[in-house]
């Protein structure tokens, strides 16, 4: 599973929050409140480890990813990457550090500059980080990258729109790997692709990780996919991590009622099982992220909610080598 305990984590995210202001209507646009898209999220990621981040739409997965990359301003918390505190790093130093942390986006149809040829797209990160050396060096590197992601070197003179979604996602993986990053953030990298292509891309990522020792932060809402690729999995709900555990522990014995509900919602390929089971989740209520006043944000939908859940937010507590934020499980 994860690497030896003594090793320093590559990425340490501590209690980060991201709040977006909610402004009133009219000319003045007075600030009338804020949405806490991410609220006190903490996790660590080691070299050669994959952390899966799952949760429904709007649970703060992508916001967490953007915050880790410092593409969004934090309203609280602390991020350490590769031994540096990057929480308040200036623009210029942050740009240099971006070499170590690259990202793959969800929509491969929008994430490549339509006016650049593939060769140029792959050279860009090298140019930006001053790694081109002489001109021939970068041409060779482009060929290497194309081969790495399984594309023909003749594709370098083509434009992005000449490729299928899967091929484009390979190109954006190649672009992310051009500068040999230590951390690769994948924000739903396959949810825009056909199922048959999804497996190819996932296997490519697994293979690349094995070969390069990359750390992956893998965001998805497809639980089966996350199980396939992750070493550990964090489940998010309403901007918070509700459960974080080793993959097998989480999938085989989910503790948090939300994790249980999520796993129960995965369809089984057996019609009898499928009709016999019930999900047991209370009616769909939107998570209360505007006013997280008091109480567990999941208490509105939770079948096991108790009185304490509605007045006190449960902290993320360690229990049996995993972390869970639920009043059902007291401190160890």
């Amino acid at each position, binding site marked *: 599973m994860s690497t030896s305990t003594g090793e320093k984590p590559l990425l340490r995210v501590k209690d980060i929050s991201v709040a977006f202001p909610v402004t009133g209507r009219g000319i003045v646009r007075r600030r009338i409140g804020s949405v806490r898209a991410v609220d006190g999220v903490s996790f660590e990621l080691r070299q050669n480890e994959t952390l899966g981040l799952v949760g429904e739409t709007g649970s703060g997965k992508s916001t967490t990813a953007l915050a880790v*990359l410092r*593409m969004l301003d934090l309203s609280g918390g602390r991020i350490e990457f590769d031994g540096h505190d990057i929480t308040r790093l200036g623009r210029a130093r942050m*740009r*240099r550090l*971006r*070499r170590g942390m*690259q*990202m793959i*986006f969800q*929509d491969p149809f*929008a*994430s*490549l*500059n*339509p*006016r*650049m040829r593939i060769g140029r797209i792959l050279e*860009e*990160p090298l140019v*930006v*980080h001053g790694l081109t050396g002489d001109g021939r060096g970068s041409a060779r590197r482009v060929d290497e990258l194309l081969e790495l992601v399984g594309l023909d070197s003749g594709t370098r003179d*083509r*434009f992005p*729109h*000449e490729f299928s979604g899967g091929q484009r996602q390979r190109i*954006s993986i190649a*672009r992310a790997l051009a500068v040999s990053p230590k951390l690769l953030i994948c924000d739903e990298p396959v949810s825009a692709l056909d199922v048959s292509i999804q497996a190819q891309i996932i296997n490519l990522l697994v293979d690349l990780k094995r070969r390069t020792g990359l750390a992956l932060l893998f965001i998805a809402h497809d639980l089966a996919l996350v199980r396939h690729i992750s070493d550990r999995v964090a489940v998010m709900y309403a901007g918070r991590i509700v459960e974080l555990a080793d993959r097998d522990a989480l999938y085989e014995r989910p503790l948090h009622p939300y994790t249980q509900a999520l796993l129960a919602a995965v369809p089984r390929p057996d019609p009898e099982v499928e009709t016999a089971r019930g999900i047991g989740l209370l009616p769909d209520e939107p998570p209360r992220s505007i006013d997280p006043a008091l109480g567990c944000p999941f208490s509105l939908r939770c079948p096991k909610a108790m009185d304490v859940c509605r007045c006190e937010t449960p902290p993320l507590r360690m229990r049996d080598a995993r972390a869970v934020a639920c009043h059902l499980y007291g401190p160890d």
Partner: protein
Amino acid sequence: MGAICGAVVLAFLLCALLADVLAPYGPNEIMPASRLSPPSTAFPLGTDYLGRDMLSRILHGARLSLTVGLGAAALATLVALVIGLSSGYFGKRIDLLTQRFVDAWMSFPDLILLIAAVSIIGPGLVQVILVLGINSGISGSRIVRGAVLATRQSLYVHAAEAMGAGSLRILVHYVLPNIAAPVILLFTMRTGSAILTEAALSFLGLGIPPPAPSWGGMLGGTSRNFMYAAPWLAIVPGLCLLIVVFGINVVGDSLRDVLDPHHMASRRRRAAARR
């Protein structure tokens, strides 16, 4: 359509360049004996009220009109790009300040502003280019800003930021190529309108001072008094203005299509298929 108009515009450009060779007479050469003569073999487009050959004046006028048009449009595009890119890309306070300035500028009627500006700095080729270019550049910055705002939100710009690219690099390599279509249209439309506005200013006697053969000046001035007797005085420069401005606008449209990467790729595929 684009090719035909391109050829026409090119023909006018050639005429402008080769005016000295092509023109049968000097543009200001006065032949009092043949005043107001209708088109004939000696004077294919007739002569004006002083006996100057209209063909020669039109050819030399093409040089002036195209210089004004292209010069003012180039300046306008530059001004629009500088204002529009910084306003749209950096946003926030810079955007607010520049856009209120542009609002204020655009609330003045164009022609009044131009007349006021020309009467302050005086008529003349360079002055007209400056005034026209800056004025239409400021209003054109809106078009650039709008395009930049849309492009700035695109995922590939975010991807470039995440990659670690700096602002200047993103502006030049990511934003600028993707707003090329509206910028090309801006340039060609401003070329046409600058030629027309110069004609209007010269018609009012505020453009390029006589006896320089500007197309607008040929329509206006004293020749107005002879238009009924000698209609070619109005028809010839008017028709030239129409053809050139229309041609430039069509060329702009097709240029935008040709520069689209989708087009480029299919052209290359066709070329490869031929090979």
